[in-house]
C-alpha cells in the first residue's frame, strides 16, 4: 500500500478512484504518564510519553484507513492528511484521511 501526501503518486498513473477513506482512534492518557507529564509541566520540554502515545495512535488510525482502502480494492491512498482534536478532558482523537486510488 502506497501512502502519499501529494495528489498523485509520483512516477505512477492513477487508473481508478474509490473515494474517501479514513481511520480514527480516540486515546486516553495513562495516569502514570499524566503524573510524569505533570512534573514536566514545571520545567517544560518534551513530553516523551505523550509523543509515543500519539505516535502509536497515529499508526493505528493509518492502519485502519489502509484496511478500509484495501477492502475497496485500492493499492494506494493519495492526499493523506492528519488531524488531532481533543474530544474530552484527557482524551485525544487522531484522524487520518485520504483518497483511495488504484495506481499502475
Amino acid at each position, binding site marked *: 500500500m502506497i501512502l*502519499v501526501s*501529494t495528489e498523485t503518486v509520483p*512516477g505512477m498513473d492513477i487508473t481508478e478512484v474509490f473515494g474517501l477513506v479514513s481511520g480514527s482512534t480516540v486515546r486516553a492518557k495513562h495516569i502514570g504518564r499524566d503524573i510524569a507529564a505533570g512534573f514536566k509541566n514545571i520545567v*517544560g520540554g518534551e*513530553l516523551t510519553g505523550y509523543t509515543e502515545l500519539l505516535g502509536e495512535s497515529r499508526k493505528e488510525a493509518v492502519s485502519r484507513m489502509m484496511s478500509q482502502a484495501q477492502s475497496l480494492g485500492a493499492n494506494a491512498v493519495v492526499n493523506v492528511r492528519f488531524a488531532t482534536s481533543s474530544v*474530552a478532558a*484527557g482524551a485525544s482523537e487522531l484522524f487520518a484521511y485520504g483518497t483511495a486510488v488504484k495506481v499502475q
Partner: protein
Amino acid sequence: MIEGFINLGFTLGLLSLGYFVGQTRERRHYANLRSREAHLNHVMAVTLREMPGLSGAHQPILVTGAVCISIDYFKRFAAGLRFLFGGRVAAYETIIDRARREAILRMKEVAYAQGYQAIICVRVETSRIASSRNDGKGTAAMEVVAYGTAVRFTDALSAPQSA
C-alpha cells in the same frame, strides 16, 4: 498566616525551578536543533507538489515527525501576566518554534535514514492536547505533527541549491 507563607514559598520555588531549569533546557534544545538542522540541510523539504527543476520523482513514501511539548511553570506565569496587557507572548513563541523545528527535523531524519533527499507536499499541524482536568489547570501541552512525501529523482538532486 503561616500557611499563606508556605504557599507563597512553594509558588516561588516552582517559579524559580521553572525559570532556571526551563531556560537551561531551552538553550540546550536550541543548540541541538541548530546542529541537527545544519547536518540535514541537504534534505530539502518543500510545501509544493513537486520539486522545481527536478523530474522523474518515484518511490514515494509518507514520512512523519511528531513531538509533544510542554511549557514551563515560569513561562506560564509570565504569559499569564502578558494576557493582562496584551501584545507579543514571547514565552509561547519560543516553545512553539522549538516544537515545529523538532517535528520537521524528525520527519527529515526518517526520510534521510531511508536514503531520501527530498520531501514534497509537507504539511504541519499543531494541536492542543486536552487538559486532564476540567478547570484547565491540569497538564496541557502542544502537539506538532509534520508530514510529507519523500521521493527519489531520476536526475541527481543538484539543480535547486539551498542557500
